[in-house]
């Protein structure tokens, strides 16, 4: 009898280990503070702020802005939590599921923000944007602000917008005898071959973080199918198995079959990809506006590529998209549902022209507030800003504009192309099947 009871208890204990990892936490619904908090002038306010700038200069810039704000408002305490990108996503998801929301936190807009807003976890800050005749709203570039709105309501604001482009090591290009960066996909493939012939690894990639490779595939879709193909698949009568998506996979396979990536790229992270490029071990890196600073930070000497250049992702002959169409996205701050007015005030402070100029000048981001682009001293950032400004069509990153289940599927499915375990048709069909269920 005792033995049976103990057996039962031991089995239940096993269950604990299996299930505690994934059981949703008990729903503790923290009631938002009720009533207006206008009275009590010197009421103590604590602002929880999560950001993902783990490295200087951004790390100390943000700290200084918080310190300055606290000095101006004696009743305000700002608690900063700095998290690494992936750790942030995990921690935020876990916390949101338990209903606790930081007052201000890193956001990329798009569907992630929309999901959080629909679940009632965010604060609609439109009234703050529209106050004083829309002074705060009008300070932003409208396209950038729109990334953080859902059904016309803003739940956050951007502080940086950028795009993915091709960064290249000019010295290695010279060594391979390439005098001008490629403008078309065919030229790009030719240059990859020239680099290989010269004994240089053409492209750095970190496919353990599958989004790094997904960018190349989705850029090809943007070049081949343009705005129409994406909108049809995501919102219209089309599908992710349409010809543009399959053809993008086929073009990508042409590249992959040339074996242009560094050895072991399937097991490499995004940081290792940046390190490979930063150490001069590969000639091209296809990455966002953060690449110049991240490749330097991850390189062995901390300086990175001495002679860095940038070109737009090449156009595909006969494609509906043009070479100036940009794929990108940016960083912003979402405002949690329990945020006090002081927290919104702080977000406003963070995105004023002075602070945006600091962000621009230190190379942390590309400013989204009019007038702050004057701070852009880094020629690389200016290149991105110009590329961004010239874009007629702006494609927000697939993993931000699409819901997480579809984004996850696209990342995992395109990884199969790089590992050469599926055909372009199979990959497109897998994505289309998941999209059809949504």
């Amino acid at each position, binding site marked *: 009898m*005792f*033995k049976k009871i*103990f*057996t039962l*208890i*031991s*089995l*239940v*204990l*096993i*269950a*604990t*280990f*299996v*299930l*505690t*990892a*994934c*059981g*949703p936490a*008990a729903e503790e619904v923290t009631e938002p503070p009720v009533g207006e908090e206008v009275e009590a002038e010197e009421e103590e306010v604590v602002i929880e702020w999560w950001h993902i700038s783990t490295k200087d200069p951004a790390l100390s810039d943000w700290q200084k802005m918080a310190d300055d704000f606290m000095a101006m408002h004696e009743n305000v305490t700002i608690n900063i939590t700095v998290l690494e990108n992936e750790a942030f996503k*995990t921690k935020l*998801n876990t916390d*949101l*599921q338990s209903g606790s929301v930081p007052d201000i936190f890193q956001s990329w807009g798009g569907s992630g923000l929309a*999901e*959080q807003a*629909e*679940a*009632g*976890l965010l604060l609609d800050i439109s009234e703050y944007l529209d106050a004083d005749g829309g002074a705060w709203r009008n300070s932003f570039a409208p396209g950038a602000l729109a990334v953080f709105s859902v059904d016309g309501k803003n739940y956050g604001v951007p502080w940086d917008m950028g795009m993915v482009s091709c960064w290249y090591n000019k010295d290695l290009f010279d060594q391979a005898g390439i005098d001008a960066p490629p403008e078309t996909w065919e030229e790009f493939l030719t240059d990859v071959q020239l680099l290989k012939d010269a004994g240089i690894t053409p492209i750095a990639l970190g*496919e*353990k973080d*599958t989004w790094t490779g997904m960018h190349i595939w989705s850029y090809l879709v943007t070049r081949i199918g343009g705005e129409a193909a994406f909108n049809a698949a995501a919102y219209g009568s089309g599908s992710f198995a349409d010809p543009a998506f399959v053809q993008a996979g086929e073009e990508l396979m042409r590249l992959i079959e040339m074996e242009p990536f*560094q*050895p*072991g*790229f*399937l*097991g*490499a992270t995004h940081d*290792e990809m940046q390190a*490979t490029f930063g150490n001069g*071990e590969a000639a091209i890196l296809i990455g966002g506006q953060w690449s110049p600073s991240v490749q330097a930070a991850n390189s062995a000497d901390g300086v990175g590529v001495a002679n860095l250049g940038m070109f737009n992702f090449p156009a595909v002959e006969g494609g509906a998209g043009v070479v100036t169409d940009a794929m990108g996205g940016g960083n912003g701050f979402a405002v949690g549902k329990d945020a006090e007015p002081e927290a919104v005030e702080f977000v406003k402070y963070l995105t004023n022209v002075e602070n945006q100029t600091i962000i621009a000048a230190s190379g942390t981001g590309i400013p989204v507030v009019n007038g702050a682009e004057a701070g852009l001293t880094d020629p690389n950032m200016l290149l991105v800003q110009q590329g961004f400004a010239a874009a007629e069509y702006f494609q927000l990153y697939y993993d931000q504009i699409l*819901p*997480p*289940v579809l*984004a*996850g*599927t696209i990342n*995992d499915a395109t*990884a*199969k192309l*790089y*590992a050469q*375990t599926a055909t372009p048709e199979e990959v497109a069909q897998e994505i289309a099947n998941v999209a059809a269920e949504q």
Partner: protein
Amino acid sequence: MRHLNASKLNLQSDKSPTLRPRKKETLFIILFLLPALVLFLLFVIYPIFRSIFFSTFDWNGLGPATNNIGLGNYKKIFTDQVFLKSMLNVFIIIILSLGLQLPLALILSVLVGRDLPGRNLFRTMFFLPYVISEVNTAIMWTLLFNANPDRGLLNAVIVLLGFNPIGWLADSKIVLMSVFFVLTWKYFGFHMLLFLTGIQNIPLELEEAARIDGANGFQNFFFIILPLLSRTIRTSVYMSVLGSIQQFTIIWVMTGGGPVNASETMATYMYRYGIVRHQLGYGSAVAIIMFLFCLIFSLLYQRLTRKPDYLTGL
């Protein structure tokens, strides 16, 4: 896992009928158990039933779950090639653990158990990996396994010996073996310690008697130590299998289940499809399936290993 072991050891506790507590004592016992019981019900039993409940929903984890799809998640899981692949991987890890990791631990425990000079040093050395946290272990080995011979020690040695560098974590054909190597490195010390404790419980007289009768070292091992160690071995096998089914941290940090699901286990599958893709209902269903695997294994194992232990008669 240690708790598991403890509760299993309780199984063997004294169950003499003469020790029946009086009524007042019973009341006290219940009173003292109450706080733990409440916590247990709240944080163990309740979440289990919540998971079962959520596993019948198509739910992204934000807001209330409204779209009940019955057993739809389960149907999808068992038709998903990736899940079947992760089940196969778990099976491979179990077989390798039982076939390589445990015998290795057993041999070492016999070596460092009694005769070896400097055995304390070796014991500490072999047990050390188990003390290091799983994430540290994973990061350390990820660095050692780096595909670039300029950065990864293993490949640096291989290149020095004149061979081509190996993509330990990048080659889908060998990634599972690389990960299994790390799992072995991490856990053999723990099983070695279990065996060591077991060996120390074997009376020296038995071995001495056998030796007087002319038994050599091998006979000593196969006819004295191995049979008398059977209960420890059973515990070890049990924990090794359950540990393999639940293996997450090391694999997630080292490979993320990749490249392309080559090192996916059920636990990483659960995380990828449940948490990363915001499908909490689907993830809950995977958790329930893992739970059932553990449950069925435990029941079968209890039944199959009823044979009493030589030493204790249990």
